């Protein structure tokens, strides 16, 4: 295993002689996307015209199907097959793994008469056209035997248990320190169920060739999808060729395979022709995972000078009864502020709602909505500026583990952000600024998000025309992976971008873990870098060992790769010339990355600071953004454009979190009442005003050989809290229940006499 010390040595990426690292190059696949010619999973060319699938879904939250009648559907025009639990093809039992190395177990569809959540797939229709399939699915008649379920989170908090295998973290003596603290805050913050609302609903196109199935599907994890399908169908994973080249957003919600993948493959097998199937927008809300609601109690005890002496963050959340998942909303707080006496932990309620799962910055995204408002509340009690309070609690080392930070620029983020934003304009006293009908206020919050590196491989080949092709079982869900991998490959090999091709999203390619947890760039990128370094070695050997090369017999350690050339001082030739002559069939090598043995000796995170200015309509309680700015430190930035888009996108998610996003459960039915994009409001263009972000210079040599870190999730962390704090500063109304809709803000305003 490698050590972080090995990563500190200069290398082609950190030296960046070609200047491609950090450059804001246009997206690699950008021309395809702006012309609409990038085929997403439902749009790929199949060997013949696909039949169209459509799912019918459960109308109750819990119980069983007492009777199902598919006769009318079967008789409907164009229908090719109708399946329910009575006649669906056999699949492996749920949760089983025929191959113990499979990353995902079996997840069968239509496996029994049991209903475990509203919106569960209960029947599947394939027809010749979409119109016929949809019409037939509506003709499936079902009678249910409903059973009472646990569907009301707030009413079920008393059923919360410790998540399996977890314990609370106690450091020092929190109860005593809290009791003795002269200044304290004890508040509970509620964050609701949220939905990813990826623009592209989940979809799959599938066809078979003998025993082998090809599936194009919209999924963030190539291997996970391949294995889930293989296990469910009880076939070897080598017989599943999974492709996912363009993905219309993921945000964690496409980290797993859903029924579209299984049913399209089964349907195509049964019919002997390609089948494609997409979720409807409405089906996405119940049929795929959501971010669970979290109830977070924060207790802070401080000395009059602001130093925290007692610190507790306790989060209660929920998941589906048969799909355990914990939203670790307290974890971030273990690394953020110094305090000698600490308590952090989680509780979990098992419910009969659809599955809870990861959504952009799981843990931090809801978690920071609590502490970063509690810090604002504490700052006010202490008469301190919220930034100053945070600076006074800036830890020297990780406050929980005592480990050194790999690099930590949180204070610089806050200071530079404050200066750029004009934080000095903020009045410490709330409700001091009025602009016409608007009460105006400012708020800030810190941001922290962990940094991760997972094992990954990459393959790279160079052909006789000099074109370098990187291949990886990686995905680009809009994050910019194609682009940054092209930059890494080009910079490593010393060639212009035009000489590099990137091919991804294919289970036949060397595996990478996919997109998630903001580990994608570092993980896939480090493997790509390693593959590039191996290609350099191979080409060096080729050149110095080839009597026809100008580099022949030269010292391998002096070989350089620049401007498309391989050279030793003034002896050089183009890579194309070398390969065409010495290896006309091309050269292919692989590379890999795994976490360093000592990487976890450091507390490794990305950081930032958010600043928000809002206006609150003094009549209606409507909150409108006026300005938002963030400063972030996230290692070396690979692409100024795509990284900034990731970060500002995350900030805008924070705006949605603060103001609009919530899936409301009707406890009578155990279903979300808002299940479309008119009912679940994500930010629209008009909501986002004067929003910008910058990155600090940084390189984290404990992170990976390139010193890069992730940026996909950092932007949302804390962003909603900055907005909430701004609402308070504008109105004097402290809301602790997200999202802060006009009704809630108005209720608060009425309570304070506004």
């Amino acid at each position, binding site marked *: 295993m490698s050590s972080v010390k090995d990563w500190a040595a200069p290398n082609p990426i950190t030296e960046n002689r070609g200047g491609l690292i950090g450059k804001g190059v246009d997206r690699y696949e950008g021309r395809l996307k702006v012309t609409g*010619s990038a085929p997403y999973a439902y749009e790929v060319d199949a060997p013949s015209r696909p039949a169209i699938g459509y799912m019918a879904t459960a109308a109750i939250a819990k119980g069983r199907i007492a009777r199902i009648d598919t006769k009318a559907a079967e008789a409907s025009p164009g229908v090719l097959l109708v399946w329910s639990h009575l006649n669906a093809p056999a699949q492996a039992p749920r949760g089983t793994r025929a191959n113990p190395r499979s990353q995902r177990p079996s997840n069968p569809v239509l496996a029994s008469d049991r209903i475990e959540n509203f919106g569960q797939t209960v029947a599947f229709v394939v027809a010749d056209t979409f119109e016929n399939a949809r019409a037939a699915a509506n003709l499936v008649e079902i009678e249910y035997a409903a059973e009472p379920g646990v569907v009301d989170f707030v009413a079920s908090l008393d059923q919360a248990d410790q998540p399996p295998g977890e314990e609370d973290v106690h450091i020092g003596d929190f109860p005593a320190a809290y009791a003795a603290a002269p200044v304290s805050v004890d508040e509970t913050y509620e964050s609701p169920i949220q939905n990813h609302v990826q623009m592209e609903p989940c979809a799959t196109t599938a066809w078979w060739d003998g025993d082998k199935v090809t599936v194009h599907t919209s999924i963030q994890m190539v291997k996970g999808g391949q294995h889930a399908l293989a296990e469910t169908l009880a076939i070897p994973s080598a017989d599943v060729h999974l492709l996912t080249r363009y993905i219309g957003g993921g945000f964690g919600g496409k980290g797993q395979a859903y029924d579209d993948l299984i049913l399209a493959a089964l349907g195509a097998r049964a019919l002997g022709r390609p089948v494609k199937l997409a979720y409807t927008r409405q089906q996405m809300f119940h049929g795929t995972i959501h971010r669970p609601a979290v109830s977070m109690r924060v207790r802070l005890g401080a000395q009059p000078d602001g130093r925290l002496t007692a610190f507790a963050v306790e989060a209660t959340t929920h998941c589906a009864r048969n799909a355990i998942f914990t939203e670790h909303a307290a974890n971030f707080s273990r690394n953020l502020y110094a305090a000698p006496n600490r308590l952090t932990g989680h509780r979990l309620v098992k419910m009969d709602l659809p599955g809870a799962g990861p959504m952009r910055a799981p843990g931090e995204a809801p978690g920071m909505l609590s502490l970063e408002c509690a810090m604002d509340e504490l700052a006010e009690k202490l008469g301190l500026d919220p930034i100053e309070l945070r600076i006074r609690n800036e830890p020297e080392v990780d406050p929980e583990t005592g480990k050194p930070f790999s690099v930590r620029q949180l204070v610089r983020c806050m200071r530079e952000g404050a200066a750029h934003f004009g934080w000095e304009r903020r009045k410490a006293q709330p409700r001091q600024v009025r602009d016409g009908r608007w009460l105006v206020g400012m708020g800030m919050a810190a941001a922290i998000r962990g940094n991760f590196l997972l094992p990954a491989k990459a393959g790279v080949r160079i052909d006789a025309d000099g074109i370098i092709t990187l291949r990886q079982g990686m995905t680009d869900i*809009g994050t910019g992976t194609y682009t940054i991998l092209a930059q890494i490959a080009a910079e490593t090999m010393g060639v212009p971008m035009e000489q590099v091709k990137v091919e991804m999203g294919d289970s036949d390619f060397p595996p990478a873990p996919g997109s998630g947890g903001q580990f994608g760039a570092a993980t896939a990128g480090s493997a790509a870098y390693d593959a590039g370094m191996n290609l350099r070695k191979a080409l060096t050997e080729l050149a110095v060992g080839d009597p026809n090369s100008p580099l022949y017999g030269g010292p391998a350690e002096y070989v350089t790769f620049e401007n498309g050339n391989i050279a030793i001082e003034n002896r050089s030739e183009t890579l194309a010339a070398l390969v065409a002559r010495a290896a006309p069939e091309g050269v292919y090598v692989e590379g890999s990355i795994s976490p360093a043995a000592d990487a976890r000796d450091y507390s490794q995170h990305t950081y930032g600071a958010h600043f928000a200015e809002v206006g609150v309509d003094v009549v209606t309680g409507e909150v409108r953004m006026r300005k938002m700015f963030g400063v972030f430190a996230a290692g070396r930035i690979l692409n100024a454009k795509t990284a900034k888009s990731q970060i500002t996108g995350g900030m805008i998610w924070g705006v949605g979190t603060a103001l609009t996003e919530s899936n409301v459960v009707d406890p009578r039915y155990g279903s979300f009442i808002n299940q479309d994009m008119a009912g679940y409001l994500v930010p629209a263009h*008009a909501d986002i005003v004067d929003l910008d972000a910058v990155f600090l210079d940084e390189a984290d040599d404990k992170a990976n050989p390139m010193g890069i870190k992730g940026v996909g999730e950092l932007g949302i962390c804390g962003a909603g809290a900055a907005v909430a704090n701004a609402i308070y500063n504008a109105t004097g109304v402290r809301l602790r229940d997200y999202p802060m809709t006009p009704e809630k803000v108005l209720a608060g305003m009425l309570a304070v006499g506004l």
Partner: protein
Amino acid sequence: MKTTITVNGQARTLDVDSRTTLLDALREHLGLIGSKKGCDHGQCGACTVLVNGARINSCLSLLVMHDGDQVTTIEGLGTAENLHPVQQAFLENDAFQCGYCTPGQICSAVGMLQEAADGWPSQVMEDVAALVDLTEAEIRERMSGNICRCSAYPQIVAAIRSVAGDAA
């Protein structure tokens, strides 16, 4: 029933189920996959195309309603080798991420710029009888029918501004 539409300058006659939306006709019958199905209910804008020059949600229109109409999709605006100015501006400004809402955003922007040039009012105007000054606030409001969950909104506004500025 038979319907003839002119798509990107080419007359196309289709004989399909009357339930077929314009969006599905484009995607499933004409192979024009650029127009996207994000919600199928007029709540996201990913399906936006231009019909007789006006931007509409093609998911909430039946093909049979468009007999004789001129339809322009993203494929009709420009090609990878010869981008439309709005496409070029989106590329340069990184005005998209996953790309799924992008064709709709671009078609919408093209339609919106014409509406603004024609002096159509918006709700952010102080006086709805006044002339249109295509400020950032105006662009944001007029583009609000196109949701971008990746939230490339600032870059989209910058891209459109750069084109509007060129045109002015």
